[in-house]
């Protein structure tokens, strides 16, 4: 039987069996794709947050996966957007695809494990109750380092292999934002992970710390040192500095732009160092305000 004799529905069915035309997504598109299932979990976890009375450390078990879904998705989307600052030969080059795959795989793994553990009412980070959970916690560390190191690589490419016509503010802001944000995150989060938890100190003798009554949304303690505060400021330099650079390209004279980025970077690092020192001293962010 000739090919032409195959009926149209049969041909369509055969099409469905064929590989997905093997159209590999470009690295930027891959990063966006990775963020989508994370964001799709957000409304589900919000419903769970409203309906589920189980708590962990005094707050809803769903508070943590929500924060991680939003922040890891933001991280991947940030990198997808900032890839446009890299020369196309590198942004779409052979090495970028494995890097994007590693970033997306690491991010999805983190979110899957954090969300699954929350659903079980158990801790994900710092959970070393048995060999399985200890191994998973180690893998979370590998995933987190991958997410951060990948960002630093993209930052380095923005500085060394910028796209044509990229403004100096955005080049410096995005490049150094990713590199310094990644570096500061590695230091703060690396220290955090070497501890038994995110608190430093206790509200009183025999009074264990709790996440109950923390600051809105971020949930940082108002009573003891909380290492999540410097982690937050370090990690979000990766969004803030590129935005400062983008704004500087539009608003500031050309000569002033590097100084603006340098000032913003120094401010960001000072904020990280200050909140890190504050947390290490056992003091809550913003004192007892």
């Amino acid at each position, binding site marked *: 039987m000739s090919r032409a004799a195959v009926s149209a529905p049969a041909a369509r069915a055969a099409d469905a069996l064929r590989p*997905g*035309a*093997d159209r590999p997504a470009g690295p930027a*598109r*891959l990063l966006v794709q990775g963020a*989508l*299932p994370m964001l*799709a979990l957000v409304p589900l976890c919000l419903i769970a947050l409203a309906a589920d009375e189980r708590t962990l450390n005094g707050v809803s078990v769903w508070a943590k996966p929500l924060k991680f879904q939003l922040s890891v998705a933001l991280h991947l989307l940030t990198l997808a957007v900032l890839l446009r600052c890299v020369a196309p030969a590198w942004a779409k080059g052979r090495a970028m695809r494995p890097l994007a795959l590693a970033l*997306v795989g690491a991010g*999805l793994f983190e979110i899957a494990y954090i969300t699954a553990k929350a659903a079980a009412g158990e801790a994900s980070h710092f959970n070393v109750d048995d060999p399985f959970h200890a191994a998973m916690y180690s893998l979370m560390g590998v995933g987190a380092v991958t997410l951060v190191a990948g960002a630093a690589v993209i930052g380095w490419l923005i500085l060394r292999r910028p796209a044509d016509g990229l403004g100096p503010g955005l080049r410096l802001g995005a490049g150094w934002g990713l590199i310094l944000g990644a570096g500061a995150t590695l230091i703060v989060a690396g220290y955090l992970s070497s501890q038994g938890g995110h608190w430093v100190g206790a509200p009183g003798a025999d009074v264990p710390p709790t996440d109950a009554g923390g600051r809105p949304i971020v949930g940082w303690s108002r009573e003891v040192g909380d290492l999540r505060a410097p982690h937050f400021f370090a990690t979000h330099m990766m969004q803030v500095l590129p935005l400062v650079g983008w704004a500087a390209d539009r608003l500031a004279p050309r000569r002033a732009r590097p100084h603006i980025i340098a000032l913003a970077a120094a401010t960001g690092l000072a904020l990280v160092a200050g909140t890190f020192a504050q947390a290490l001293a056992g003091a809550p962010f913003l004192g007892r305000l």
Partner: protein
Amino acid sequence: MLFGLTWEGWFSIAGSLAMLGWAILILAPRRWPALNAAPFYLLPALLSGGYAVLILLYFADAPGGFDSLAGVARLFESEPLLLAGWIHYLAFDLFVGGWIARRADAAGISRVVQAPILATTFMLGPIGLLLYLASEGALRAAGRRALA
């Protein structure tokens, strides 16, 4: 017992078939149509056949019905019908997984992104479907050219 095998025995055969399908769907390359026909069509059809046999043999005499939750619970007190209900899950979840995989391939969604969505569909069917529909919808809404 059916054809000399206990319900537990049929249960474990059905589960193994479904697992095989999901393993191919999540891990195997899509290059080989004959291999992928298993999770897309053959295994759901086989499981559906098993469901059909159980329903045709045991449904008529079963207590309960679909009119209330209590009625459904009574229906599932019959072991072969409980098994039929489970095989119904396995067959339809796998078919939905195949549908997701084909659609995601056509939309150019990476296998690394497909994997956790398919794994969620395997474990918690409707949640995986929701994740996929939301992801593909957002991707289409964002436009293909925006971040090509």
